């Protein structure tokens, strides 16, 4: 039960980012991409690898039981952003492959088998799984095509539904 109720937004975001980062550090084809915490900001992007960004989770509801506090349902947007011009590699197909991997990752019990390390507050949790953190995945949808200005730039977004327990 690592997620703190009052810090649930940033804790969940950090945990999902740490999970994606672990896959990107070790598992093909994730190693072809790079993970970004939060929405990527910048006037001009110059990245050689496709970005997988972990946006801010949104609370969508509660799961209650009588007599006490509820668990929380959340949705988190995971984006794939392939840079335009000569910097991007793989084009639209690469973006769709990344989106497909995100959809499948959060659509199967295999999502609980990856161990990763994350620091929440002052505590570092070493080699824990998503389930160890009390996060249960209930589904993934998408990808949505996000319009971009550069003709050789591609963006997709996947939404992952979670149950967060404390």
């Amino acid at each position, binding site marked *: 039960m690592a997620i703190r109720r009052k810090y649930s937004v940033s804790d969940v975001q950090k945990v999902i980012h740490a999970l994606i980062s672990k896959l990107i550090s070790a598992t093909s084809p994730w190693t072809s991409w790079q993970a970004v915490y939060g929405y990527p900001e910048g006037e001009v992007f110059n990245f050689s690898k496709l970005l997988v960004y972990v946006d801010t989770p949104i609370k969508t509801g509660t799961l*209650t*039981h009588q007599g*006490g*506090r509820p668990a929380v349902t959340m949705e988190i947007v995971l984006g794939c952003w392939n840079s335009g011009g000569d910097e991007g590699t793989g084009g639209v197909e690469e973006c769709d492959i990344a989106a497909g991997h995100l959809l499948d990752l959060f659509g199967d*019990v295999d999502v609980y088998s990856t161990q990763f390390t994350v620091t929440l507050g002052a505590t570092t949790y070493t080699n824990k799984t998503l*389930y160890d953190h009390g996060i*249960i995945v209930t589904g993934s949808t998408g990808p949505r095509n996000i319009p971009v200005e550069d003709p050789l730039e591609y963006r997709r977004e996947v939404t992952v539904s979670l149950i967060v327990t*404390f």
Partner: protein
Amino acid sequence: MSLTDNLGAPVKEVFIDNENALHRYTLVNPAAAAAPVTPVDIYGVQDVTPGAVSCKKTFEGFQQGGRGERRKIMLQPEYNVDVKIFLKDALALVPALLKQTWGAGGHYGIPLAFEDKPLINLESIYRLPSGTHAGSLVCPDLILKDFAPNFGSDGHITTLPFYSKFLPFEMKAGAEMVYDVFTADGSSLNYTLSATPLNIVDVSERANMADLGWVLDNAVYVKVRAASADIATLQTSGFQITGTDLAFTTAPAAGSKIEIYYAKATA
């Protein structure tokens, strides 16, 4: 416990998704004796819904002239178990339950009429999203009542209606069912079980629920089935289980099958 207690949020272990359930069965009276009989996974299950247990006979006893609490004595329990399953998987499962093989070397058609005899022991297993066993529901000795495939708008899912005369029970995480079947040689008194049976709450702890067939606290049933017989005889005496030793006081007849259904700790 206080009137003003505020409970914490439900823990993660309470959230179990559809895909975390696994249903498997062992054939009652399999073609070949084995200890243990290997369970078979069932594909395509959408839902397993056991109904409430009802008893065919009930008696209510109280003493005339007194004010004792009324107590009901219940006999001959029965309950229904509806298995909702993809039609394609049902068409494969039903012949398997009847020990038939489709196609080459087997049959190409089966009448949809079924004898009133136990076909399977059903074990419905619940696992946490992490894969850890969370507990199981066990329905022994299921009898298939009928099977009417539907071709409606949801025709890809059909219902297999089973019932049983043997009480269902729930089982603790970390335990699983074992079905051992031996062929008696007519002289041996002792048979070695494939695992050490765990204790199960038996009828002696449920005082007014006699005649459920649970005669031991570490086996759901022990049956002896005469050679080629459809119906077995539940054993209620003349044997005991110590560790993995199943010991009879009188040797079962040669060629008969000894069937024992019990729980073991998962290795």
